């Protein structure tokens, strides 16, 4: 029987949540195409991650485990994953569209001599072929494709499928990680942001733009984000203020920055240029604060306040802090 294979992401022994989202998509495809779901994990010391994966609803877990795989290596991981995909008669291979997924899965697809569709938001199986939808032109259009080669390989946009849970406990098959000549290998992982919520995972994003006038006023944005309590909100920035050097590029939201879709997004002193909107248009609720009633951001915002950010934002911060404290 063929398998829908999920390549899980494990870092430092910890299973990354988007891997469980990929299992959900795999279970859907397995149901539609009459296959089983197998998960492949790579790393060193995978027992805890595999126990978690075993309870995801997957039918089988393959752990490629050993000291040689302690650090990520795109070429070594890809070779080992491809070997297991062949042994599992993979009809599809899925992974999250994360820094690791983007690096690993295109190489896997090349070694399998097949195609790949990346940053996918929906998958299906129709008329005997796998299908996928993905945003293109920075979310200004959606491309629907049908796989013409096998296996079907795809990376899935995080936060787009529910995380799988509630399986019976699948067996784990252990495979020794092969040692050997690594072409590229991660030497070091430097934590950045000191425990801050990653922008793409935050429930609330508070973004500021040139309307703040000076770098030091960005504190107003940080204060509003902090008002939501620890681990809830992250700050974002328009390119104008990243280019001005007020904020690091890692905080830029937009076509050439990060694409975020949080439940709640604040655009403060941001005009709403098409490249900015490309990065946040899929947020569930958008709030805009801008002193110009004609600013394009109001065309896509769910709620807007026309006013001076320097007056509105501190009042909003106080009000939200009071609500959060009362909870």
């Amino acid at each position, binding site marked *: 029987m063929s398998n829908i294979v999920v390549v899980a992401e494990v870092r430092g022994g910890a299973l990354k949540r988007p891997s469980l989202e990929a299992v959900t998509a795999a279970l859907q495809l397995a149901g539609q195409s009459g296959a089983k779901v197998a998960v492949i994990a790579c790393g060193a010391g995978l027992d805890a991650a595999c126990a978690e994966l075993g309870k995801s609803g997957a039918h089988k877990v393959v752990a490629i485990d050993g000291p040689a795989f302690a650090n990520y290596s*795109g070429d070594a991981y890809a070779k080992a994953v491809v070997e297991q995909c062949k042994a599992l008669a993979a009809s599809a291979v899925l992974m999250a569209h*994360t820094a690791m997924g983007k690096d690993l899965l295109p190489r896997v697809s090349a070694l399998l001599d097949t*195609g790949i569709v990346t940053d996918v938001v929906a998958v299906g199986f129709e008329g005997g072929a796998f299908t996928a939808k993905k945003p293109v032109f920075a979310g200004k259009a959606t491309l629907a494709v049908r796989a013409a080669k096998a296996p079907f390989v795809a990376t899935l946009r995080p936060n787009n499928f529910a995380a799988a849970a509630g399986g019976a406990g699948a067996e784990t098959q252990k495979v020794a990680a092969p040692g050997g000549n690594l072409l590229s290998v991660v030497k070091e992982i430097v934590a950045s942001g000191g425990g801050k919520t990653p922008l793409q995972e935050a429930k609330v994003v508070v973004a500021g733009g040139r309307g703040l006038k000076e770098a030091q006023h960005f504190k107003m944005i940080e204060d509003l984000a902090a008002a939501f309590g620890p681990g809830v909100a992250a700050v974002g920035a328009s390119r104008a203020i990243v280019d001005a050097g007020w904020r690091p590029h890692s905080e830029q939201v937009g076509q050439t920055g990060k694409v975020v879709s949080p439940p709640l997004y604040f655009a403060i002193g941001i005009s709403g240029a098409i490249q900015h909107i490309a990065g946040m248009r899929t947020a569930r609720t958008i709030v805009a604060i801008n002193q110009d009633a004609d600013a394009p951001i109001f065309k896509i915002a769910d709620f807007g306040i026309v006013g001076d950010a320097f007056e509105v934002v501190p009042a909003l911060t106080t009000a939200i802090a009071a609500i959060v404290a009362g909870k």
Partner: protein
Amino acid sequence: MDIVVCIKRVPATDTAIKIAADGKSIDPTGVTFELNAYDEFALEQALRIKEQLNAGSVTVVTIGPKECKKQLDDALARGADKAVLLSTTEWVYDGASTAAALAAWIKTVPCNLVLCGRQAVDSDNNQLPANLAGRLGFACVTEVSKLALDNGVFTAERDIEGAREVVTCKTPAVVSCHKGLNEPRYANLKGIMAAKKKPFVEQPVQLGSKAMEIVALTLPPARAAGKIVGTGVDAVPALIAALREIKVL
């Protein structure tokens, strides 16, 4: 070091997308095209590596329509030594067939480093560099925003979720370039004059069967028009009430 820089001509990022009559591509009327922003970082890095080593060559290549000559000429004017246009009339969106064609061409030229952008901003694929590396058997690091070369070994830095990775990478390699890596130079008059004498090769390319067939290209549903809840600081309570009503607060 012989460096190949892969570039793509894409619609300018401020383009409003209209769907063509076939329902599978964009209507190109009125669209201005430009060099993919990330490919500028790739080209700049190639020029800097050549300057650092004071040896080697920089060849820019693209698979695309004849109109790409403009972007290739610009790359020559910025300092590339040679330009290659593998011409096709199709919209190049399928990473597998594109990577296969590029890999086949790269195997015919001297090359120990391929530099790409992290992502082409039309198909938003973010897959060609690692795909290419797999086909060539090269090492690969993607989305690099810092790169150093020492004794033929690269040390690259890249952002991952909530952290930064430091990666060592042997040659031959494919590296995909992200913002932050460098500040691209522009062409000056001297460069533009010099470019006219540089080799420019144009040959048709067959992209072969697509691994992914396009079913449809559609516009996302428009967001419903929002509501201005009020003006100035007095509007804060109304905003809070609105957010509580939809239970995001």
